[in-house]
């Protein structure tokens, strides 16, 4: 097993002429919960999609557990996309069967017990579920795998604050201890307590990567506070209406 779980070297991604990532260098160890933080359009989703092999980088190299992205790395990554991709006529239990077929590390019994604690009825069709409930099903699918790397793209954006805490608790208590969880979000104050490390992404580049405790100690403020300071949008200075 490789010491480092994720290594990105000089990763560049352009959509046509439009740069999304401009030279990302990143190393992630094992057994950590890492926040990928940045404002809208900073490249969070692009980076996550490159890590899980859905997008090819324009330049640069990505290694997961010492391997280039391919069938092996996909088998050790559990990915929560930023949108639903399931047919809505399916039931949650259908999805569990599907995942059990695809991934040998998927634990169906665990998925069922997570549903029970999240208050999801697995025999319901997705069509009949609310947006938040669907997100919970998606989270169950992702967390019921014993993966090495969990890539969670905006896992808490669509649910109410109480459910948010519950979901974060689910992530905390259910991830594989030897695995690493990468959570992209802009709801920083909600996730800050669960993070080991924070990565700030700005205009496609990593501007900060440190432990949350170091940031608080050095800056005398929370990661959320620092984020607001760095990414403060300038007020619109157009003329009056």
């Amino acid at each position, binding site marked *: 097993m490789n010491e480092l779980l994720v290594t990105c070297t000089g990763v560049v991604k352009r959509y046509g002429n439009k740069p999304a990532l401009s030279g990302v260098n990143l190393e992630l160890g094992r*057994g*950590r*919960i890492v926040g990928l933080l940045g404002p809208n359009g900073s490249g969070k989703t692009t980076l996550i999609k490159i890590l899980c092999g859905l997008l090819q980088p324009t330049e640069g190299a990505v290694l997961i557990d010492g391997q280039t992205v391919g069938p092996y790395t996909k088998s050790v990554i559990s990915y929560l996309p930023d949108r639903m991709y399931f047919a809505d006529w399916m039931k949650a239990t259908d999805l569990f069967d599907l995942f059990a077929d695809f991934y040998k590390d998927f634990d169906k019994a665990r998925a069922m017990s997570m549903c029970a604690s999240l208050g999801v009825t697995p025999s319901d069709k997705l069509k009949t579920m609310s947006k938040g409930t669907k997100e919970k099903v998606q989270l169950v699918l992702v967390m019921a795998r014993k993966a090495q790397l969990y890539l969670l793209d905006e896992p808490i954006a669509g649910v109410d604050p109480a459910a948010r*805490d519950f979901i*974060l*608790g689910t992530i*905390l*208590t259910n991830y594989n*201890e030897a695995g690493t969880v990468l959570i992209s979000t802009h709801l920083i104050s909600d996730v*800050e*307590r*669960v*993070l*080991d490390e924070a990565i700030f992404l700005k205009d496609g580049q990593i501007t900060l990567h440190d432990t*949350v*405790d170091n940031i*608080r*100690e050095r800056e*005398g*403020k*929370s990661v*959320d*506070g620092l984020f607001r300071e760095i990414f403060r949008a300038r007020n619109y200075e157009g003329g009056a209406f």
Partner: protein
Amino acid sequence: MDWTFTEDRPIWQQLAEQLTLRILKGEYPSGSRLPPVRELAALAGVNPNTMQRALAQLEQDGLAVANRTSGRTVTEDGEVIRRARRERAKSAVAGCLRILEELGYTKADALVYVKEELSHE
């Protein structure tokens, strides 16, 4: 008692303080076993590594003792707990005095107010 965290300091320090307080209040009595790291982390809603660091601080302070096989227990040394309680009491009084001084009261005023407050009880 809920776990609350302020913005300006590392979370592990605040965890260590709150765990200490729980021990001093007898919520985790002397000699009793502390819940495992993961369980405590889930209770406080924090990262297990952060909780680990807080517990390491408690061990350093002598309030918690790590056993090789069975997790951590609260120290059985009553003197350590008594000392920690006194520390806590001193800093509570110091904090109170600081606030009164900021309001422009002298230490003598403070003493009068404390006595007055006590006589009401």
